[in-house]
């Protein structure tokens, strides 16, 4: 293990000289966690995530992480990380696809308990017949769990978002779990150029004394601050307290906006935002859209791009403003339900502009020509 010094997040993210490495998305996870000053990581294998937590196990063996073990299944892992976070330590895990669904009960429990857990979700198909291939359907189910959701376009995003997720998650006024999503195989198992800060730097340690709920390690005073459920009684005030609690969890998500702005440069990134035709996409659909925009340009068609980096909180206001002047808003997705198109439609004033296509799923790739077909169709209407 290389001895590391604690630096400020700003030094690590913006000031340190970075080295370019040609690595897979899974290796980018390893490099992020190596610099994240993580206390504990808990793993359970599932394709296409297994390699990430395997590599995190390797850096535990090297001494970069204090504790690491394999859980009994995904539900057990997500329960164990919540116990670790409740006790006041920095914790990391990863899962994907059916693993996400198997552990699902814990995600709203994490946000309800204000636990700043960072979890990487390497998405894959979840519906029968079995597939291990990329598909982002699981993200639709996670949108209303109260966790913050960042979606990586590539390995660089995955690395940067993971590291920054710890800082966002642990802000006292936010203090929520952050899921960093990457499209399985497309990102996890392909090599890409990734710029990485020196390995002798790491984030400052997590301070549970700033938590908006008491850490429950039974040693930090005030001890015995158990979060007893108040729903044990059937009366109005118990329900009102629960309602106020849920509102506070959503409010905490709203407070993340300014930190996402300062650390990730905004909830969205745009190109040609004044074009008549806009593409709104997240994850690897952004990369495919970039190719499609280049192809369209060669046909004389000018198309804008809105890359959605944060799904929770969702950039509703930003998209509403951008869509106001567009003739059409194309939303390509790697799932059959079109959850991003639904989100976009709930943000724009004229929903008839939104084209929820193309959609591919079950592990299919998305040839840029499919997006170009939609661009051509919209430009002729």
């Amino acid at each position: 293990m290389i001895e590391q010094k604690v630096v400020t997040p700003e030094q690590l993210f913006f000031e340190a000289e970075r080295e370019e490495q040609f690595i897979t998305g899974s290796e980018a996870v390893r490099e992020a966690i190596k610099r994240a000053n993580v206390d504990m990581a808990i793993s359970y294998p599932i394709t296409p995530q297994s390699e990430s937590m395997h590599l995190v196990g390797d850096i535990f063996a090297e001494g970069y992480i204090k504790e690491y073990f394999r859980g009994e299944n995904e539900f057990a892992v997500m329960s164990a990380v919540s116990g670790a976070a409740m006790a006041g330590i920095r914790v990391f895990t990863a899962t994907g696809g059916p693993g996400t669904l198997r552990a699902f009960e814990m995600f709203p429990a994490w946000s309800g308990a204000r636990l700043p857990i960072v979890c990487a979700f390497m998405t894959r198909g979840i519906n029968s017949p079995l597939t291990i291939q990329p598909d982002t359907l699981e993200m639709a189910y996670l949108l209303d769990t109260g966790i913050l959701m960042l979606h990586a376009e590539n390995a660089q995003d995955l690395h940067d978002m993971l590291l920054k997720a710890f800082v966002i998650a642990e802000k006292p006024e936010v203090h929520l779990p952050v899921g960093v999503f990457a499209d399985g195989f497309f990102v996890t198992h392909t090599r890409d150029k990734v710029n990485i800060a020196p390995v002798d730097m790491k984030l400052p340690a997590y301070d549970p004394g700033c938590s908006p709920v008491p850490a429950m390690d039974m040693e930090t005073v005030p001890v015995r601050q158990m979060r007893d459920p108040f729903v044990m009684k059937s009366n109005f005030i118990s329900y009102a307290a629960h309602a106020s609690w849920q509102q506070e969890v959503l409010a905490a998500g709203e407070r993340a906006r300014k930190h996402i702005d300062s650390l990730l440069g905004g909830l969205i990134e745009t190109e040609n935002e004044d074009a008549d035709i806009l593409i709104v996409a997240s994850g690897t659909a952004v990369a495919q859209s970039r190719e499609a925009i280049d192809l369209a340009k060669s046909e004389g068609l000018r198309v804008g791009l809105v890359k959605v980096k944060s799904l929770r909180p969702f950039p509703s206001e930003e998209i509403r403003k951008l869509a106001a002047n567009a003739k059409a808003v194309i939303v390509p997705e790697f799932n059959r339900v079109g959850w991003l198109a639904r989100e976009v439609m709930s943000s724009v004033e004229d929903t008839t502009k939104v084209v929820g296509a193309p959609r591919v799923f079950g592990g299919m790739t998305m040839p840029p020509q499919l997006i170009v077909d939609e661009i051509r169709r919209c430009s002729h209407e």
Partner: protein
Amino acid sequence: MLENKYQVLVGPEGYLPPAAASRGIALPDKGQALVEGEIVSEQEAMSKIAEKILQAKNPFFFPGPLLLWDWKEGVAEKAKAVKALADLAGTRIIPMPDYRPKYPMINPAIEINPNHPNLTIWHNKIDLCVFIGVHCHYANVALKIIRGGTDCYTIALCGEAGHEDAMISLRDVGLEQLERLAEAVGRLKGAASA
């Protein structure tokens, strides 16, 4: 969108008031504060707090566990400063010792609980309360319930980033801010008695 700008005003606001953060109220940056949903300077908010406390008929401090236990360096000094401020301003104190719901019910004459803060406010006819040392999550849960069901004016002196759900909120409150707040109260009292 047809939403009006939301203001954090004294209640009772109704059956289920919203979280102010979900209605566009943002937390202040360092050196700033919130007054009824508007960002103002810290000094302006301190003057407003002094004015509100001295105008109130039955003001109370609600110190929470972060102030009641001597759990880290500086807390005991801060607690003494709060006691001195309460004495100076003529406010009484009811503690929020922990966050556990008490059944069948708490004794509202001697304590307050974040899950049913309205009981203590109603029982003691409190028209202004100052939260300090309450973990942020529990403070926000309570502040919304108070806004929904009582006519109590709420002030939060937060050691972290502040509270949109209070009518006035300071952030990063330490010993220095408490001493400056006491000075503001003292000045206003002196002016009133002169």
